[in-house]
């Protein structure tokens, strides 16, 4: 289990991976990958009980993670590879023909660590709720984690799942919203009218933890601690983040939601991100 100083190093390398992968693929989603990097690194290198060596898709005896916002696959793949699920060299194959690293995560190409395909938005919370209820049926005390984008929570199914998870008292379910306030067509408030997230989740019967700096590992880890001690409610961690965080020209704008940098822009971005664990 990595502590904060180590997590910071991993996050820097993961950001480099994201930028390099998307540049090489000439397509992909850097903005949300960069905003959710600390959340993902926290999960895979500190919070979750998981073992890449013994991973199976049935999630038996381990925590499970579902990425609902499938388009931020670059950060997911980087975390999986850096955690040891598959060789980091494979990150170079993102989105290429024949790759296990499909444009959106899937299970049909045999990449270890992936439980369910995602890409069509708003569905992962339901799957995570299913896993969580199954773990309760089986008397397992492991947790199920799921990460959603904020724009994604405009989907109606999210609120079906919200109702369901609270109704079934799924306190082993921990959801994270990457609250970067940006979606493809602009600011989330303006595009979908989605405001007052804390009030909404709270009124659905969830334990809500808001983290005002969603890039601060200390605060993120503290939020997960609160989540894990929930007695009878699922927990939503609202992480206030910045789209494109860590790369100045990508930060705070929806314009880098789904666009690859040029080679020059890639170099400019990498100059801002320390290579801590060695590039793939």
């Amino acid at each position, binding site marked *: 289990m990595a502590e904060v100083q180590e997590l910071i190093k991993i996050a820097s390398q993961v950001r480099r991976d994201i930028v390099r992968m998307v540049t090489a693929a000439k397509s992909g989603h850097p903005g949300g990958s960069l905003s959710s990097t600390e959340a993902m690194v926290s999960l895979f290198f500190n919070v979750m009980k998981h073992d890449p060596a013994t991973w199976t*898709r*049935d*999630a*038996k005896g381990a925590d*499970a993670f*579902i990425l609902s916002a499938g388009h931020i696959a670059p950060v997911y793949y980087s975390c999986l590879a850096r955690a040891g699920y598959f060789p980091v060299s494979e990150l170079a194959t993102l989105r290429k023909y024949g790759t296990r690293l499909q444009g959106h995560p*899937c*299970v*049909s190409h045999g990449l270890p660590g992936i*439980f*369910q*395909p*995602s*890409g*069509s938005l*708003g*569905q*992962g*919370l*339901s*799957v*995570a*709720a*299913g*896993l*969580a*209820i*199954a*773990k309760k*049926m*089986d008397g397992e005390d492991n947790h*199920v984690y799921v990460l959603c984008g904020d724009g994604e929570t405009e989907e*109606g*199914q999210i609120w*079906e*799942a919200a*109702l*369901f998870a609270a*109704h*079934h008292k799924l306190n082993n379910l921990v959801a994270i919203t990457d609250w970067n306030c940006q979606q493809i067509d602009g600011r989330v408030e303006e595009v979908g009218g989605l405001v007052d997230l804390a009030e909404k989740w709270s009124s659905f019967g969830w334990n809500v933890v808001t983290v005002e700096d969603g890039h601060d590992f200390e605060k993120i880890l503290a939020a997960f601690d609160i989540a894990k001690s929930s007695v009878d409610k699922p927990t939503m961690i609202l992480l206030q983040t910045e789209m494109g965080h860590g790369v100045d020209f990508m930060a705070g704008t929806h314009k880098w939601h789904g666009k690859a940098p040029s080679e020059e822009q890639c170099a400019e971005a990498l100059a801002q991100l320390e290579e801590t664990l060695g590039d793939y």
Partner: protein
Amino acid sequence: MKEYIVTGKKDTRSGFGDALTELGRKNPAVVALTADLMPSLKMDKFAAENPDRFIECGIAEANMVGVAAGLALTGKIPFIGSFAEFVTGRVYDQVRQEVAYGHTNVKIASSHAGITLGEDGATHQTMEDVALMRALPGMVVINACDYNQTKAATLAAAEYEGPVYLRFGRPSMPIFTPDEQTFEIGKAYVMNEGTDVTIVASGHMVWEALQAAKALEEAGVSAEVINLATIKPLDEQAIIASAKKTGALVVAEEHNMAGGIGELIAGVLAQNCPTPMEFINGKDLWGQSGTPAELLAAYGLDAAHIAEAAKKVIARK
């Protein structure tokens, strides 16, 4: 012609419900979910006997599909039940991503399919569901012919590893297949052997096809009747063999033309042995309120129309 004795009348959905009860007693991995339609899906008994393995999802079908996928990942065998429209059209994208593409072991129990739903009218009478489910790679699609066969098919679906779409209906219909039977997924059942024409039917239309064959026999026509209980994977060899033998086909289904079994079989025959065909289906129309019998007659989905189509196709040989 082979004689079929009607041993009773029951809805095919009860075949599903009774099989689910049986599965609840013998297979602890089986779980059932519904979206506020427990009695309609005949899940009451399973729910009463296995409260810990029954999940009421409320009127939220999209979530139900995702929850089922999550349950399936852990080795459980979830059956999700609702009306045909609400477990296909309403949640097509969820079924596509979480069940079919994820290839999770989810069984979709689809009741009140087709026009025989009756009085509720077109909003509920899906005549497109087979097309949607057939279009998904890896999805098994089953539409058994009566209560007994639906029961057997449900038991077989639980044994099969992978996504299955089980289609059945609302009204009471004749029971004419054996009480005790095993269901083989992917097998087309030859119900009657004949030489002049083949009638391929699925679901409720199988009984109509047998009645048509009887009428044809009286008119001196020998009709082969095939029960296409499994629509996908298609038993191509059985269809091709019969088409080669009789040289003329009628396909009858309680579904619209687009994406139904008529088009499916036409595609196979076009490639293997082009054969004159006629089609009995809901064409390209919406349903409407009425009794099942009224609607079947009004939309031409009955024995009389099948027999007429058989004569027409024989004349085209």
